[in-house]
């Protein structure tokens, strides 16, 4: 039950933000994380749960190699 999607913060007013998902903009609750426009965030059930750091596909594979060699 944890359908959550990454989107980009368009604007923030108080604890409400507008988040863009590939051209779809939705309002989201922003009271649980400090966010600013331009941040990539994870939104679950209309609420921003976390700011995302940059996803690098290579990081994933590197992580796995670290685990393999540990």
């Amino acid at each position, binding site marked *: *039950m*944890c*359908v*959550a999607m990454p989107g980009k913060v368009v604007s923030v007013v108080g*604890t409400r933000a507008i988040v863009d998902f590939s051209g779809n903009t939705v309002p989201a*609750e922003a*009271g*649980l*994380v*400090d966010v600013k426009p331009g941040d990539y965030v*994870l939104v*679950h*059930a*209309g*609420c921003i*749960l*976390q700011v*995302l*750091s*940059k*996803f*690098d*596909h290579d*990081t*994933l*594979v590197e*992580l*796995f190699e670290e*685990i*393999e060699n540990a």
Partner: protein
Amino acid sequence: MTEIKRFLKEYDGPPLRLMEVCGTHTAEISRCGIVSMLSPKIRLVSGPGCPVCVTVTAYVDRLVELCREPGNTVVTFGDMLRVRGSEKCLNDARAEGGRVRMVYSPMDVLKLASKEPDQTFIFAAVGFETTAPVYAALLRNATDAGIANIRLLTSLKTMPPVIDWVCRNQGGVDGFLAPGHVSVVTGSRIFRPLARRYGIPFAVAGFQGDELLVAIAALVKKRGSGCVMNLYPYAVTENGNEKAQAAVNQYFSPHDAAWRGIGVIPDSGMELRPEYARFDAGSGGLYEDKGTNADCRCGQVLTGALTPTQCPLFGTACTPQTPQGACMVSMEGSCYHYYLNKRG
């Protein structure tokens, strides 16, 4: 990635049972066709990770009762509409005149409640640690805006106690695909005590196909070791979202909770703190679970004891059009996905 895919397809070591405990992982695993990419010696088993599926009938019965009382409107996510209590589901109640509304976000209730101050809006607050903060935010906003006609009927559950239960009572799990979005809130640290206690690896996984593959491969590589691996580092940290955790702690406290097919697990759920009782629609003591079909094996499917295909009703009396239990109703239910993808 090609190496990792080959590793998974050609794995020929001891047979392994890996459990995913997140309904959204179950759904994504299906959608990406991951089972077809694994060696037959790596078996994925679905655990009790779908909050709709583990909800007991007493909870649904209470919702049905509430929506028929004049002055009440029950508000819910889509999935809960078709889950049956001991007799009816919310859709049935709605057809009989009960007031039920579906929303995309609990925050939508604020607008509904302020538009109709004479109605009491009761949100069917199901979920794990991922959704609890959203309910906390709802109550905080309601308090700030002076909106008093909102209530929660809670069926909030937490992951570590039920994972512990599975390890103690079921066993046979060689690795856990840890829930990615629960971990965003709680941090990956909540799995450490379990990993250590049982000597089983936990891999916190994201939701894209290759993230799931890497997490599964990591569990295979690290079998037998009690480690917690964060393979979703751009969303999950060791300590999680502490602001969200504080919000949850403000409004909710740990409490016993009843899980379909398992029974009551101490401190495995959350209820509203006494000082917020004014927001409670009567969530306490909803422990009874009596399915309408005596042959329904949802309980055992949910804990990985049986695969859906081993349930006597699967595919015959129980299909997505005629679901007998929550695992087939919910779009994150194991039975639903096994049926949809004709998994063996």
